[in-house]
């Protein structure tokens, strides 16, 4: 997280830590973690933790480790031989079914899913929260959870970012309605290692309750704008997948 500040896991109790490679996810059910497809496409047995602010080895011992049972990537996600060449992050969403239910408490709880009404289409300027243990301005990895507030912006803003990397041709990247653009203020942004984490917004008409509007997906350059998978567009898929995989597999 660029431009963020240290956060207590109790402020982001839905935050899931993916150990290696470092990434994030959002706890949406006792048995389900929502994350980005690109986080798990090459890692079908991720090591995950919840309930801890710091992710060093000692703290992880006291955290609640989550054991994946099944990784389900969105069927429309495009698999590539070399993910590093990816320019199309459309449908960057995946679900992970856990073997055992997660026990909730002050450091572990769920993030709400968006409803289907238009109230869950974030308005421009609406401030959301992001969190993660990804790269900061100073460090590639941090031990302590970071959090930040970022506004929702038009997708166009993400498309118009002037990147410093000359090899990056933003025009060759795919921008769709399945993406939310957010950030752009004083360098506050998500970055590598935050992928899969939740961009949460207040539930309409409820100031103290949040829902996951987006998942950290990609961005032109950390510290500018970030692109988040628009979760609302995948509600039906999420619901159907959870229902169809509600019983443990017989593997």
């Amino acid at each position: 997280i660029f431009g963020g500040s240290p956060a207590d896991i109790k402020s982001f109790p839905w935050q899931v830590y993916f150990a290696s490679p470092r990434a994030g996810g959002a706890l949406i059910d006792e048995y389900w973690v929502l994350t980005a497809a690109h986080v798990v496409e090459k890692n079908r047995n991720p090591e995950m933790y919840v309930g801890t602010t710091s992710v060093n080895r000692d703290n992880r011992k006291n955290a609640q480790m989550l054991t994946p049972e099944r990784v389900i990537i969105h069927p429309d996600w495009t698999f590539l031989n070399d993910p590093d060449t990816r320019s199309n992050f459309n449908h960057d969403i995946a679900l992970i079914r856990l073997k055992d239910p997660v026990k909730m408490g002050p450091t572990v709880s769920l993030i709400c899913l968006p409803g289907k009404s238009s109230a869950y289409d974030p308005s421009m300027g609406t401030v959301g929260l992001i969190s993660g243990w990804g790269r900061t301005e100073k460090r590639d990895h941090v031990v302590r959870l970071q959090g930040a507030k970022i506004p929702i912006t038009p997708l166009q803003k993400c498309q118009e970012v002037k990147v410093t990397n000359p090899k990056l041709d933003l025009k060759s990247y795919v921008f769709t309605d399945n993406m939310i653009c957010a950030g752009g203020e004083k360098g506050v942004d998500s970055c590598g290692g935050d992928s899969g984490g939740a961009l949460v917004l207040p539930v309409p008409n409820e100031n103290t309750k949040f829902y996951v509007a987006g998942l950290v997906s990609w961005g032109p350059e950390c510290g500018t704008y970030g692109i988040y998978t628009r979760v609302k567009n995948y509600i039906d898929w999420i619901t159907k997948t959870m229902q169809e995989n509600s019983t443990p597999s017989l593997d």
Partner: protein
Amino acid sequence: EPTMYGEILSPNYPQAYPNEAEKTWDIEVPEGYGIHLYFTHLDIELSENCDYDSVQIISGGVEEGKVCGKRTSKNPNSPIVEEFQVSSNQIQVIFKSDFSNEERFTGFAAYYVAVDINECTDFSDAPCSHFCNNFIGGYFCSCPPEYFLHDDMKNCGVNCSGNVFTELIGEITSPNYPNPYPENSRCEYQILLEQGFQVVVTVRREDFDVEPADSEGNCVDSLVFVARDQQFGPYCGNGFPGPLNIETNSNALDIIFQTDQTGQQKGWKLRYRGDPIPCAKEFTANSVWEPQKEKYVFKDVVMITCLEGFEVVQESDSLRYFYSTCQSNGKWSNSKLKCEPVNCGSPDPIQNGKVEEPEDTIFGSVARYTCDEPYYYMQNEESGEYHCAGNGSWVNDVLGTELPQCVPVCGVPSVPFVGTQR
């Protein structure tokens, strides 16, 4: 040895008897005979009441006669001047003379012979109850048709015992009814019905005429009913003195009719029936009986259904209803079964929540579930309260028997993120 005849002569006969003489002759003839004692000569000093000289004849301790004076025969063809006849086979003849006999008295000559006595007529008490047959030296008794001679060889009776009545209704009368019943009889009847029925005897007043009680109030002829542990009677008199219906509470009844030698009346007639033994109409809590009746009797079957919320608990299972039968002993079968409040047992625990242990777990009790707040909440808001239902389950108005679900709260961090951004 008893003799058939004999002679008795006064002392010194035919000479004058001495003064102050006393002589006794004990005469005995064989059993079955009487004695005819007759004097052919009698010449004894005459005195008032024969106080001075006399011949005394005693039989059975009773003075048959005391003679004195001079006698002559009134019948020229018979030498007998004085005679006695007794029915006993023994007499005693006592001659006495006092001290002063100025004249010469020659005493007496007497003869005795054994004579047949008619036992059937010679005594005030007839020796036989029915027919008496005299023969020389004895007698024998005999009986009319259908009578038999008892072991005493004197009394006749009727063989009227041994009948056992097993039908559920019947009629029994005294022998020969309505003609006079036999004397000297003991008639025993028995009514024996199937277990579960009691004998009820009905005797109408006009159907009863038995020799009345004696002066001391004791029945000389009597009718008695004997049940298992109860006796009714003895009854006698003209008109039945007991109740019209006698409920014996027994399936077996002995009827004994005893008569003496005299006073035969027309007898009695009774009807009987077997009533099924009743079972008490009991109150059993928390249940209803079907069918509902004023009275239940042997073999009646009732279905006893527990009210809602009650059941009969048995070792391996529980029943909502059971059957009970009125038995032959007047008791209900399955009387130990009772309808007790259904017990739902402890309510099942739930994940991520708890149930408040109820004060009781019987029908009507309430158990309350709550979730581990604030991290979980009840999926159905109104689904926390369960009551113990009649079927033994904890039931919720919304979910029925399904347990409530505590689902995680979403989107509410316990600590708001403040951040340092402005």
